[in-house]
């Protein structure tokens, strides 16, 4: 993954990332891989804010960010890139400003829209990896279809109440999102109960999955779904399977 034109590390970057360059298996090569990577995050809300913060902090070179609408008071319990002073103004502006405060070297491609059938191809074409943080299954399934078509890895993160789930889709090797959820489930409601600490926990883990896929260091949750409940701290990992009749990655697709 080398979409960034200048993956060399400056002396300043060596300093900024010195705590992680010494992680076994990471080193300068891993750090240059992060600098050379372009990651799509959609949306940049409760989950995506934390994914974006962690990837910006880790030194990913470029983030492609899609999120529509203006900052609402009800965003502020979990959407850590939104600020009180930005209520009523575009969320994506708050996101970009906060990320650049943390990492001014970060390159961003920001879109003040959520993922749609019209923009998904262009967004994925700009990206080496996708982190799906969207609340609507229509958006998630659009990104999944494009990820499979372009063989772009996609980290899937989700949350509910005090619970969260995470898996990493490696097209051609693992089940895709449609193998797990073939259709938009009728019982799903856009607004659901959740704490910011829950979206933050799975956002951090999703960022780590992205870092592992980009650098090749560690084992991502490929073909496995991590599911956990912070109410009783039960963590389970489930082996997931490709559906032979999957409308996206199955043999008939």
């Amino acid at each position, binding site marked *: 993954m080398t979409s960034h034109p200048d993956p060399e590390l400056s002396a300043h970057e060596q300093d900024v990332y010195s705590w992680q360059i010494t992680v076994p298996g990471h080193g300068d090569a891993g750090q240059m891989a992060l600098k050379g990577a372009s990651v799509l995050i959609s949306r940049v809300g409760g989950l995506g804010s934390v994914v974006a913060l962690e990837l910006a902090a880790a030194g990913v070179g470029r983030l492609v960010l899609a999120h529509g609408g203006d900052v609402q008071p009800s965003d502020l319990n979990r959407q850590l890139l939104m600020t009180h002073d930005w209520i009523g103004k575009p969320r994506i502006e708050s996101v970009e400003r906060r990320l650049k405060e943390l990492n001014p070297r970060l390159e961003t491609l920001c879109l003040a829209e959520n993922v749609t059938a019209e923009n998904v191809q262009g967004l994925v074409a700009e990206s080496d990896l996708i982190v799906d943080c969207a609340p609507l299954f229509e958006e998630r399934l659009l990104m999944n279809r494009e990820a499979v078509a372009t063989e772009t890895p996609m980290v899937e993160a989700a949350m509910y109440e005090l619970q969260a789930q995470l898996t990493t889709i490696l097209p051609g090797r693992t089940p895709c999102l449609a193998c797990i959820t*073939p259709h938009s489930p009728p019982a799903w409601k856009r607004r659901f109960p959740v704490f910011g600490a829950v979206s933050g926990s799975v956002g951090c883990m999703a960022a780590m999955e992205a870092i592992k896929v980009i650098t090749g260091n560690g084992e991502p949750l490929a073909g496995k779904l991590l*599911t956990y409940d912070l109410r009783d701290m039960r963590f389970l990992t489930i082996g997931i399977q490709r559906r032979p009749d999957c409308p996206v990655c199955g043999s008939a697709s």
Partner: protein
Amino acid sequence: MKLTLEWMSQLRVAAGTALQVLDCPDGVQLTEALEQAIAELPDDRSEALRPLVLVDGRRVSALLVALDGVQVLTDGNPELRPGSTLVLSSPIAGG
């Protein structure tokens, strides 16, 4: 024979419990065990949970089912072994 069910996500909230232990007839199949589990819950819980799990006696296609740690696809209805653990989750998303 004894089985353990673990409800996740919206199912956990609807069921009002994370874990349910079932005493099932030998040779019970997955969908029948789910029918029994739902029937054994208090009426209001059963009513809330049923449409998230079963429609017209078939498992909802978006339901994630794992038997002893491995996903069972929607068209599978395996016979369960004594001591098996089922984990069930409805789909959840970001936001």
